[in-house]
């Protein structure tokens, strides 16, 4: 009797596991289909010319070089803003903050920023950077908007890295008479470098792929020239893709270009985030202390 109850329960387990496995399978397969199509449709158009030439003939031919450059500028610009401020904020939260109202407010602020929709950042960037600060539709406005958006990623990742440095390291330094700041710079930061790099890479990966924040702040559909100053507008890969499929007049010629751009964008983002995630896992696992 009991034996049969156990086998009943084991059968139930088998069915349950099969259901869960099917769900996981569906998820993996759909993701695989997505990637497969991007690669299959994007790969044939990939060429040196595609990467290195500006678009031609109303974007039905040629490449997307300006968009690539624009995306690079926006990504780096965003990181230049978010990295120093983000790292400093993380240092404050992990090394200096007392459990007071101010700290709590900062944490809530960071959490809220992390959850805001990207289009809201777009509205803000347009109203603030383009209008109030008079940067206009430009690389600068776009990079700052993306930088604000990426701030929480840098803060959270860096703080995780700082907190992972054992307290004993700090105590050792402090007991030798070093100030908190010196301790942070000399002892804590060097031990958290890979965490900070992870944050920088992840935030850049995020900034590079976003479209909504740059629609009104930085991007233009079509330009043959590269920006000369930070106050020029640029093409950007994600916006380029959007433009090609929604405003294109010759879909049969522009769709392949869109897929080529999408493939490039996906590769760019996956490489950046892949590096970031790899570093994070490695530092989490290989702690020598």
């Amino acid at each position, binding site marked *: 009797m009991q034996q049969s109850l156990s086998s009943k329960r084991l059968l139930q387990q088998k069915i349950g596991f099969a259901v869960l496995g099917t769900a*996981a399978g569906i998820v993996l397969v759909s993701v695989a289909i997505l990637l497969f199509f991007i690669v299959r449709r994007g790969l044939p158009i990939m060429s040196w010319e595609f990467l290195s030439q500006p678009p031609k003939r109303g974007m039905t031919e040629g490449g997307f070089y300006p968009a690539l450059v624009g995306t690079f500028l926006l990504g780096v610009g965003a990181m230049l803003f978010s990295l120093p401020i983000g790292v400093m904020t993380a240092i404050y939260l992990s090394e200096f903050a007392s459990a007071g109202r101010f700290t709590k407010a900062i944490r809530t602020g960071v959490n809220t920023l992390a959850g805001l929709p990207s289009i809201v950042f777009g509205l803000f960037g347009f109203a603030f950077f383009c209008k109030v600060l008079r940067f206009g539709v430009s690389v600068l406005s776009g990079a700052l908007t993306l930088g604000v958006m990426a701030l929480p990623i840098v803060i959270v990742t860096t703080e995780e890295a700082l907190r992972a440095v054992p307290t004993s390291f700090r105590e050792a330094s402090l007991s030798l008479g070093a100030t908190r700041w010196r301790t942070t710079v000399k002892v804590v930061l060097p031990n958290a470098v890979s965490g900070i790099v992870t944050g920088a890479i992840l935030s850049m*990966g995020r900034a590079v792929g976003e479209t909504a924040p740059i629609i009104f702040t930085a991007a233009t559909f079509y330009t043959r020239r590269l920006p000369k100053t930070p106050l020029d507008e640029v093409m950007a890969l994600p916006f380029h893709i959007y433009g090609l499929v929604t405003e294109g007049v010759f879909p049969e010629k522009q769709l392949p270009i869109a897929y080529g751009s999408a493939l490039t964008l996906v590769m760019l983002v996956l490489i950046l985030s892949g590096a970031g995630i790899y570093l994070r896992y490695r530092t989490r696992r290989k702690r020598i202390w």
Partner: protein
Amino acid sequence: MAKYSIGAIASVSLLMLLAITVMLFANALPFFGEYSLADFLFGNRWHPTQEPPNFGLLPLLWGSLIVTVVAMLFALPLGISSALFLHGVAPTKLREILKPIIELLGSVPSVVYGLFGLTLLAPFFQRLLSLPVGQTAFVAGVALALMSLPIVVSVAEDALDSVPKEYGSASLALGATRWETLMRVVFPSARSGIWAAVLLALGRTIGETMTVLMVAGGAAQIAFTPFKPVRTMTAAIAAEMGETPQGTLHFHALFGVGVVLFLLTFIINLIANKYATKSFK
């Protein structure tokens, strides 16, 4: 003092949040000076270019809602089941490979999901269900589900992982099978973390722009079926902002929509963070 100068820099995020709030409200204010709040919140027509214009939020709210519901109907069961699979069924090796891959997929840009939805999912479902149009709330929901799956899976798996191993041991030692342990002990114990995953995905989905802009069809209408085109709040802002001269009522109305979006996601995330911090230390 180092503490105060660093504290000053640390407050930049807070200042930015403040600036976002101020900018949104300041630019929405002129709209509410001319258009009644009640007509905005409860109006069921969004016709910004008509004479006289209608700025009823309901069609956009409806669009966001129906797309989100469809997305969650797919993403939550699939995502949570996958997290349970990774945590309780998959061998450790497989989990260690799949977990980072799933996290990685979370970084695929939304415009790519939009492209995929527009050129493949929309025609596919149009033919499959013989619909008059391809770009519908349903297809947008499916594309968004695909996009939010990585968040659901990885946050839910983190939540399951944070359940103390002792609970599992206690259950197994009482003679429970691994399935019973997973479903009756580990899963309920991870409740609050799983709620956090659900809410995070919800917030992301409501706030997602590019995918819906490209796939949902863009018609601001209240249709009680997901197989019609809709326009979400985010898509309205993204699509109409560029075509609207600054300073017009329409321009400010879009900031009004932005305020609604801001408040909605703010509340969802507040609750999500409550849940996230409630799980095991």
